[in-house]
């Protein structure tokens, strides 16, 4: 029987078959890589938590992250948020991972601090979709390095200010440099950091 390529039935059957065939292949590819993708996500999150605690840096090989994490970090569920605690040199620190809105998509970040929430131990961005080269610079090492050892201001917040653009590394002024050309992203990160400080203090109080 000769197929009539112009018939509606042929078009419908052909489209259906082609759709099913390609979608099945995609579903298989997705399923095959799923565990790997999840492992990548977990590794990313654990790396950020360890970095915030100051227990890892960019030179730490990814093969050591999992063992370090299970050894040193304790997960603790408080209400809806998961808190992470770690004892470093006899002192306990609390870290909070939180996702809040950004300019283009949600920003996820980890903030580690002492249980009273007075001195920041470290801050790491886990995930963000800000403008590359502008707001996206919140992922650059100098930006998160500003938070290391930063004393929180008496009102319990960290301030974001227009600075030199090179970073504000004075531990006593409770202020970090915002990102040049990305006022909105800076505002979103400021809200995220200060919310994390509030949560960290709440959780730190229960320890």
């Amino acid at each position, binding site marked *: 029987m000769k197929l009539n390529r112009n018939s509606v039935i042929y*078009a419908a059957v052909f489209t259906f078959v082609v759709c099913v065939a390609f979608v099945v292949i*995609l579903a298989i590819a997705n399923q095959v890589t799923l565990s790997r993708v999840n492992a990548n996500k977990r590794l990313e999150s654990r790396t950020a938590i360890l970095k915030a605690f100051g227990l890892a840096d960019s030179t730490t090989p990814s093969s050591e992250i999992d063992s370090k994490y299970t050894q040193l970090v304790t997960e603790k569920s408080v209400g809806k948020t998961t808190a992470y605690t770690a004892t470093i040199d006899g002192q306990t620190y609390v870290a909070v991972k939180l996702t809040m809105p950004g300019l283009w998509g949600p920003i996820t970040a980890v903030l580690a601090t002492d249980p009273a929430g007075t001195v920041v131990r470290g801050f790491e961005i886990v995930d963000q979709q800000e403008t*590359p080269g502008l707001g996206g610079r919140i992922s650059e090492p100098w930006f998160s390095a500003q938070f290391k050892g930063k004393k929180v201001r008496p009102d319990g917040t960290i301030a974001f200010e227009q600075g030199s653009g090179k970073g504000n590394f004075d531990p006593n002024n409770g202020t970090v440099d915002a990102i040049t050309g990305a006022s909105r992203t800076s505002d979103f990160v400021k809200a995220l950091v200060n919310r994390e400080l509030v949560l960290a203090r709440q959780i730190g109080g229960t320890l």
Partner: protein
Amino acid sequence: MSDVGKTSVPAKISPAGKVMRDGLWYNNPIFVQVLGICSTLAVTNNLRNTLIMVLGVSFATSMGSLTLSALRELIPRKVRMIVQVLVLSFYVIIIDIVLRAYQPAISKQLGPYVGLIITNCILMGRAEAFAASNPPGLAFLDGLANGLGYGWVLLVIAVIREFLGFGSLFGFKLVGDWFTPWTIMVMAPSAFFLVAIALWIANNYKAKVAAAAKPAVSTGAGASAGQGGKQ
């Protein structure tokens, strides 16, 4: 669409060679077809992202053209665009899946841009203009040539933008702290200027070559051509 280019293609050249030359220069997607400009604006502020984008587009165009060309006798005319989009998005999603699983850092940086390869007009353009009426092997080459033709222009623009915008190439800092990055180079508008300048240079050059070639081509046809060549 490409009359400027066609006149300059030398005669007696294999179909494969012609397809490659067309994609890379005479019918370059950026310079002549003016396609794929959106992604040119979006990803060229960083060389590494540009390179991944170029590889992704080249893969999707070449494999998409190959598949669509192989199916061309079977595809009903009425639904051919639906099938084209389906096949091309299939390859784009494959790229996305592979990047997410094996290159998570790059996948994260490129974010939505990988999925947006499907909106690159080069893919549909080649499927419709070439793959629909040519054999699979040639269609594959055409897709590849167009991907690479798009690619080298993007890479040139990315070198300029990343160097001036960040002072680095492929993320390696090349200049000291004295360098003040040009913020404009990081933002999309700078790509508009650079693409426009590149188009201007390329088309100016092409017009000159075409003008120089004309008298030579018509030498056999008329005596006046000889005089034209001297001007």
